[in-house]
């Protein structure tokens, strides 16, 4: 693994609890399909990034020269919301019921205006036609802090599975 946590350290309790609230809110908004509210958690200049596999144990690291599963700025996220709301995507109608479990939240570095966080995720997706799918991995967030307000500047999603069944999209990872 290339992204070992080397700088994990105790952080201010208030900050950790605000971060946990943000991550849990994000999970809830996704599971409740409140996509537009979800997008409001992101900055205008955000990046939502799910790297692909570069080898058996490494993910791609350079989105400009290597292929990612998803490399989306805010405009691309809005387009993905448009896609699943359109009622016209074979893979998105019906949408699965999802439950995001987010745990192991840890601050990996913090400066006055930018906080970096890692967390573990597990998403249970269920479709009546094809059953349940479990996927898991790690999140790496870069959060922008203005006063007490946190917003998502970058979310990197490492997906551990390398044999995907069904679709992967912003709502089920």
């Amino acid at each position, binding site marked *: 693994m290339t992204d070992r946590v080397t700088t994990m350290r105790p952080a201010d309790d208030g900050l950790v609890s605000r971060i946990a609230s943000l991550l849990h809110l994000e999970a809830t908004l996704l599971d409740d399909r409140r996509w537009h509210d979800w997008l409001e958690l992101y900055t205008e200049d955000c990046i939502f990034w799910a790297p692909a596999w*570069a080898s058996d144990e490494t993910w791609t690291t350079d989105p400009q*020269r290597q292929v990612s599963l998803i490399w989306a700025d805010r405009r691309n996220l809005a387009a993905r919301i448009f896609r699943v709301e359109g009622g016209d995507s*074979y893979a998105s109608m019906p949408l699965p019921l999802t439950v995001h479990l987010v745990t192991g939240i840890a601050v990996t570095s913090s400066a006055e205006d930018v906080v970096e966080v890692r967390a573990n995720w597990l998403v249970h997706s269920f479709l009546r036609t094809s059953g349940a799918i479990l996927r898991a991995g790690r999140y790496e967030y870069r959060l922008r802090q203005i006063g007490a307000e946190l917003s998502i500047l970058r979310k990197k999603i490492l997906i551990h599975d390398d044999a995907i069944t069904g*679709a992967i999209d912003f709502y089920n990872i």
Partner: protein
Amino acid sequence: MTADVLSAASTSAGAASIGSLIDDRPTEGIFRVHRSIYTDPAIFDLELKRIFARAWIFMCHESQLKKPGDYLATDIAHQPVFAIRTTKGGVSVYFDTCAHRGARLTTGRTGYAPTITCRYHGWCYNTDGKCIKVQFEKLGWPDGLPKDFDTSLRPVPRVASYRGFVFASLDPGVEPLEAFLGDATCKIIDLLADQSPSGLEVLDGSIRYRMRANWKFQCENGADGYHVAAVHRNYAATVTYREQLAGTGRDPLENTEAGRILNRTGTRTGSYDLGRGHMLNWSDRANPAAQPLYEREQELLQRFPADHVRWMVRRGRVFTGFPNFLLNDVASTSIRVWRPVCVNETELETWCFAPVGESDKARTARIRKFEDFFFPSSLAVPDDVFAMEGAHQGNSATDRGWIRFARGYATSREGADEPAQGLGMQPASSNGQGDSETVFSGFYRRWLSLMTSGEPRART
């Protein structure tokens, strides 16, 4: 179709009965396949033996094995194999099994093993397949291993490459690769390989995915222009919406072919039965400047005839290779392979490839366009996968018996049409409409000819 015929097809002696699963009456304009070819496990078992164990199967592109010892593990007809770059510089393909007690040798799907070590009892091989170490040999065999103990790795009987695309076959008697591909297919591959004097490279970044559908649905889907306006209408609408959000003044490379997908631009399209079971679907680009290769058009015109460059730069192409690979040069460029797992499950894998030496801007645009369409995380392939799964489920209703490929007979003709002639290419048939179904007959005739031939003779 009676139950008798189906049960007869279930035996290895059932070649004649398999013939009855394809209803091919060219003079009457009728081409039908029986639905059981998608769903009958006995037919699937025969396909492994008679198609996958006899055909040339795509392994990898040479650029995926950069240095000696780089390997890629896969399977052919459910037999584990790996392709490896040897110290002499070539690519070899071996059965992935130790000469000692048969354990699988590779430890990953891709890796680096200048010395291939079996983890079970510690035997070691070099990249030429020669056993270079038998663990504690003197203790167990004081006089050395018996002379008749074959300690070498078994090479897969045939390995060959065409323009950097590496294929292997389990059948020692298979025809030469270029004959298997055929002249028309070689010309289509040339249109990719010629895009840079330094050749092509496969980019880092891949993922496997599975669909719960028979493997032949992916063969059909690649050559099926008809589904695009239905299944990918959503893709087109989504990228159009994204373009609107971006406003005007964006770089041409940020544009897409959405309008063409929605079949609103009136561009010329076509589909070819390339012969030997290979199929091509093509469409003139409505917006050539949106394409990463556009920056090289003038340079290519110095090196190749204008008609060839037109095919390279201004005509999007989806090539479906028999039996299980696909080469795309549409919004972006991709290689896809699909491996039959069982009658109703298929594993797929897709890579992006690019001409070596393209500009940074074109490379990044190519990658973004690839991500838009070709992965199970894209705006399009998930819809394909669900469509193919739906096709499999529906075809499990065998009451109707037959699928009739009927669309586009009026526009089909034998041999080359004018665009094919421009490339000096002789397809078996040409169709002036990209959304016709006439090309499928070429695929299924090839399928039938292999299914009704014997199995490869076992090597001693």
